[in-house]
């Protein structure tokens, strides 16, 4: 069965050794990813971004990653050489970061950055690479690819910057995209337009997506399946459409404490944290 799975994560732990003691950022996360859109939702500090980074071996120095199994299409990522990891990063699994302002190289033109991503993973001529870059910019709904190719990141808007980032991550044709709050810095309408671009490309190419966000409504409407994380663990897993029927008190608390457009609440129910959530084993699968 594991053949159809792109990624298998079993009992993933990320710990940081700090002057004040051991910090467990992720403690025992397990999931599998197929050709689907998987959402990871949680509040700040829940370990959702740390999970994404650990998969790509991007855990900051001082952090230790351990797992029973961490496999991408049969390749064990835990003992992979740095050389293999470099091929997987970008070529097999790539990551879209939150803010294009900080994640694009400010002194390289947009076009050469996208091209670089392609040339590192594929052997093609400069001319073909440039054509592919234009094509990619068109695919992310950028109207004048020839003009945008020559611009620098500071000359484009946030929405366009994020489309450029998607283009750059898509061009080596990875199997998995990890998107860490890819649209949180954008206005709502722009956010949805950028997600539509991402959605269409994932469907066309049959990729897997891990979508990390704090926005419950967005994840529920965009993804197929959701993992809810709390304090480094997955407390619940459910189908996106069934979030309203979620069982775990933490998930229920998160859903309920959102103000609703249709109103009807005088006071918002406040989430009461139960210490037992920290000790009970994670969600059953």
């Amino acid at each position, binding site marked *: 069965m594991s053949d159809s799975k792109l990624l298998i994560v079993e009992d993933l732990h990320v710990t940081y050794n700090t002057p004040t003691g051991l910090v467990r950022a992720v403690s025992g996360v397990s999931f599998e990813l197929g050709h689907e859109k998987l959402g990871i939702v949680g*509040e*700040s500090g829940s370990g959702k971004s740390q999970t994404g980074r650990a998969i790509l071996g991007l855990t900051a120095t001082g952090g230790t990653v351990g797992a029973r199994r961490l496999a991408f299409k049969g390749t064990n990522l835990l003992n992979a050489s740095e050389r293999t990891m470099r091929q997987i990063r970008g070529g097999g699994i790539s990551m879209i970061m939150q803010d294009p302002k900080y994640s694009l190289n400010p002194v390289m033109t947009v076009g050469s950055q996208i091209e670089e991503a392609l040339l590192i993973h594929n052997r093609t001529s400069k001319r073909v690479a440039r054509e592919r870059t234009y094509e990619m910019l068109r695919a992310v709904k950028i109207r004048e690819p020839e003009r945008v190719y020559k611009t620098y990141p500071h000359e484009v808007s946030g929405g366009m910057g994020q489309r450029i980032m998607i283009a750059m991550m898509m061009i080596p044709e990875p199997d998995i995209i990890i998107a860490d709050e890819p649209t949180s810095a954008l*206005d*709502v*309408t*722009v*956010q*949805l*337009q950028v*997600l*539509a671009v991402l*959605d269409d490309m994932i469907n066309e190419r049959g990729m897997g997506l891990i979508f990390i966000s*704090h926005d*419950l*409504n*967005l994840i*529920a*409407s*965009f993804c197929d399946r959701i993992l809810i994380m709390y304090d480094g663990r997955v407390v619940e897993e459910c189908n996106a459409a069934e979030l309203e029927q979620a069982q775990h008190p933490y998930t229920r*608390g*998160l859903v309920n*404490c*959102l*103000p*609703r*457009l*249709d*109103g009807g*609440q*005088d*006071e*918002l*129910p*406040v*989430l009461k944290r139960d210490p037992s959530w920290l000790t009970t084993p994670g969600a059953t699968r």
Partner: protein
Amino acid sequence: MINIEGLDVVFGHGKNSFHAVRDVSLRVEKGQSFGLVGESGSGKTTVLRALAGILERVARVSGDMTVAEETQLRHRSQSFRRRVQMVFQDPFGSLHPRHTVDTILSEPARVHKLDRIEQRVVHALEEVGLDASFRFRYPHQISGGQRQRVSVARALITGPEIILLDEPTSALDVSVQAEVLNLLMRLKREHGLTYILVSHNLAVVAHMCESLSVMQNGSVVETMSVQQLREHSSTMPYTQQLLTASLGYDRTAIDAFEEFA
């Protein structure tokens, strides 16, 4: 309580000038909460800052503003500054990193020459649900939600009638957002406060306010009651699109989105 007529704000001069707010008028009754919504760059925060009187040095502000039956001149009176307070978006940037909570809270009281400062500080902390042990901590020693409570306490200390809220919860987790919104609602009830709330989140505005204005490119597109917003009875395409977008991801709806420039 608040009446703004034909407000215009222009930053810069000549070729480099930017017309941030164009002919905005709004009216807020005493004890009401009024929402200003719009996307980034729509001018909603600039309206709030112009009303607070903190733009005069950096921009050309014109139009008539009346607050509590007092016409506001270029230089605001001391009593205006006491009666109108502001809470900012980012609790990390708006509290002095090297001042203790006690210093942060007593400063406005000292500026306005109030008496019994220590009692006021303790009382303000109590009002926002923090105990007196927070007085001698620094901002970096407390959580984001607690920091935003300190910002609210700082606004309360002068005994204001109007609080201007600029995205007060958008930097917070949803569970903390719920606590801060509940706190703001309770304070409004207990003190009869008037709020203007700037937010990009329609659900937050629908929860907190009775009426709202939708802004786009510096102008008010539409002013309506929250009831009308809930019933989707808006007539303006821009408002309708914003409303659709705030309901979540819907692939087919997105293709119908228009560019409003």
